């Protein structure tokens, strides 16, 4: 069977930072798998500026931030990049199977770093009653449609939840000429960063309803309107507070869930609540040599923190490999 010292699953900011760090710490046989046709992960669709302030001390767009890492990874010949490569199976012995056009490959990795990111929570997880027409999007999908595909998902938008992507999309829709009718958050406070509440919602005078929920969706083929109601401390609808908003689009932005199905498949101990592996040390799992970093490890507010976390994971993987090879760990390990 094909063997690799280190396999990294995920070519977003986390996976790239981990790969570079592992290389800089002495690992010379690295395979980086990315299921998309390009590196960069979710940053590719984040065209707004708010990245790199702490890590690069500069204000960058998402593609600019990831671009710096892409250039660096590509320049390192010890990092083999495999795109359109989808990891489908992982065992506890760190045997990984991935599929790419024309190929299914099984390999044994001495160490693995999972940098698989997160997915958005969906409308289905919220149980919003009512119809199921077109026009309901996760905020991230709407972002991709606008920023990557050049399509406008809707013209009269309501945003359910106040996660950062939702807040950023409120501004994006306004700039695209759509009308954003409201942001509706069930909690007492916004879920996303204060900076995004101010710059993306308040500055555009978008009504922001805290302690409110969407209690019903209407529309036969396309979203037509929604019911909104105030909720009490237990998130129950308060009678007599219901009102309606007409809209053709509903964005759902109620948080992210780490994507750790492969780690779960490998039978590492999982925390079912957070969908992350149980570990008593940063970036580790219950399986020796299987590491996790970035949003797959913990949902971070800022990509800068993802990068720092992933640099550490790369170093830990290097340490693990060097120890395993019987070599002594050089003092200068970064």
């Amino acid at each position, binding site marked *: 069977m094909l063997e690799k010292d280190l396999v990294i699953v995920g070519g977003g900011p986390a996976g790239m930072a981990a790969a570079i760090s592992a290389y800089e710490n002495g690992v010379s046989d690295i395979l980086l798998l990315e*299921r998309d046709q390009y590196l960069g992960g979710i940053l590719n669709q984040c065209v707004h500026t708010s990245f790199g302030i702490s890590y690069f001390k500069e204000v960058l767009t998402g593609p600019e931030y990831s671009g710096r890492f892409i250039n660096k990874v590509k320049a390192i010949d010890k990092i083999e990049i495999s795109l*359109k490569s*989808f990891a*489908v*199976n992982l065992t506890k012995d760190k045997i990984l*199977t991935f*599929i*790419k*056009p*024309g*190929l*299914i490959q099984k390999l044994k990795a001495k160490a693995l770093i999972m940098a698989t990111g997160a*997915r*958005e929570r*969906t*409308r*289905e*997880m919220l*149980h919003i*009653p*009512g*119809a*199921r*027409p*077109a026009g309901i999007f*996760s905020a*991230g*999908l709407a972002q*991709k*449609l*606008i920023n*990557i*595909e*050049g*399509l*406008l*998902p*809707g*013209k009269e938008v309501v945003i359910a939840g106040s996660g950062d992507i939702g807040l950023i999309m409120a501004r994006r829709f306004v700039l*695209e*000429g759509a009308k954003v009718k409201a942001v509706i958050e069930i909690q007492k406070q916004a879920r996303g960063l204060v900076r995004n509440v101010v710059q993306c919602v308040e500055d555009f005078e978008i009504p922001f309803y805290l302690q409110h929920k969407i209690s*019903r*969706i*209407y529309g*036969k*083929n*396309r979203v037509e309107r929604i019911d909104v109601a105030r909720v009490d401390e237990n998130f129950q609808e308060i009678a007599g507070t219901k009102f309606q908003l007409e809209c*053709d689009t509903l964005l759902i932005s109620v948080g992210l869930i780490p994507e750790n199905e492969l780690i779960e498949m490998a039978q590492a101990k999982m925390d079912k609540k957070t969908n992350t592996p149980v570990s008593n040390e940063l970036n580790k799992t219950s399986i020796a040599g299987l590491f996790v970093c970035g949003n797959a490890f913990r949902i971070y507010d800022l990509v800068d923190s993802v990068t720092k976390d992933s640099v550490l994971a790369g170093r830990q993987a290097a340490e693990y490999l060097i120890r395993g090879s019987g070599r002594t760990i050089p003092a200068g390990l970064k």
Partner: protein
Amino acid sequence: MNSYDVAIIGAGAAGASIARELSRYKLNIAVLEKEAECGFGVSKSNSGIIHPGTQNPPNSLKGRLCVQGNILTRSIAKELGVDFQEAGELIVIFDERDLPRLLELKREAEALAVPELRIVDRGWLKENEPNLSPEARLALYAPTAGIISPYRLVYALCENAVRNGVEIHTQAKVENIISLSPARELNARFEIVTLKGTFRASYVINAAGLYADDLSRMAGIDDFTIRPRKGEEFILDKKKQNLTRHLLFPLPSKTSKGILVIRTADGNPMVGPTAEDAKDKDDLSTSDEGLKKVFSSVKRLVPAIDEADIIAYFAGLRPVAGEDFIIRYEDKAPGFINVAGIQSPGLTAAPAIARMVCAMLKKNGLNLRKKIIFHSKRKKPIHLFNIPLSKTQRFIRKDASFGDIVCRCELVSAREVSDAIAGGARTLDGIKFRTRAQGGRCHGTFCTTRLMKILSQETNTPLTAVSKRGLGSEIVKEERTP
């Protein structure tokens, strides 16, 4: 104007089964369907159970057709490459005082010739259905109950009918039916006016589901109305796929079989349906009350069921026209056959309904001559999720695009999406029902744009025309103005 021997209105389970059955004969057949795809009426949102024939009134037409349909579906599924799983059903009682009612159900079912029925006791239940509530005392066991994917069955029937020469016209809502009799020749007794032009036919079969009353009225028969009866269903995470082994039913009521614990053809546990009269024939909304009703009821059967495992939900409408199906040749409108009020167990009964309709046509003058070549088989579509990883290599070698993964949650490749489109998918829902892409945990967040592009390319339509389920449900409003 094209003339047909038979025009079938509606491509649901009933219409599709009739079309495929008739395609054995030398006939010109057109199916007229108002939706963008076949099966988008009642037949896409139901429980997918191939009922054994229990819980039907004695001497009912639906009971008889259900028992026959259960047998016929097995061979049809095999011929058409659709998975059928014989799961068996248990009608459970919690109080021995209900035993007489259970025995009555058994007797009624035996009168309809439902095979292999028996009463099983607590010990049997404990061993064979471990997660069933310990309070369950006895059950009526019907081993011939099965599970099928209702939409994949309809798609397969339609594809096979087309292969055998049937024309299917989608987005062809029938707006009027004009009787040309008695003056015209036999093969143009009716003129059927649709949104896609006018069709002539000598026989018309009305299998229009919820709208069969409207269609019947157009032909001058107005002695029934269809009332929609809603059923809400909730699908649970596949991680819980071993929750139950059999299909679990409580004692049935007068209007429904009760709220069930079953599973989908893909292995997800499913709970529901409710049974409430709805006002509106397009009201497919779900409700908080429905959710509460379903979960309080099914937790009595299986206490381990948890609302937190819900991954999807939907509602369906049963087309109810009184107690039983209405399947009859209308002497007042010669050439017109009503297939109406096909409530549950309509999916099961569909192949038997098709045979019954064939017999009616024959009796009323249609010459049924068998074709020399009838393609009874359809190649089973390849889905990576059905193939063990160790065998995947073969397919990827044969066609690289089997290795181009589009939907990561359900492992669907670009090739499967193309196959779905070649088989008739024209909408994102149609792709989902055929391939499961967008049907997993992320509900399409990651794959929607890719699917839109493939659909747009392969059907040569602009991205802005790609829809969820047909006209009016386009995914995006317009292209961005740069």
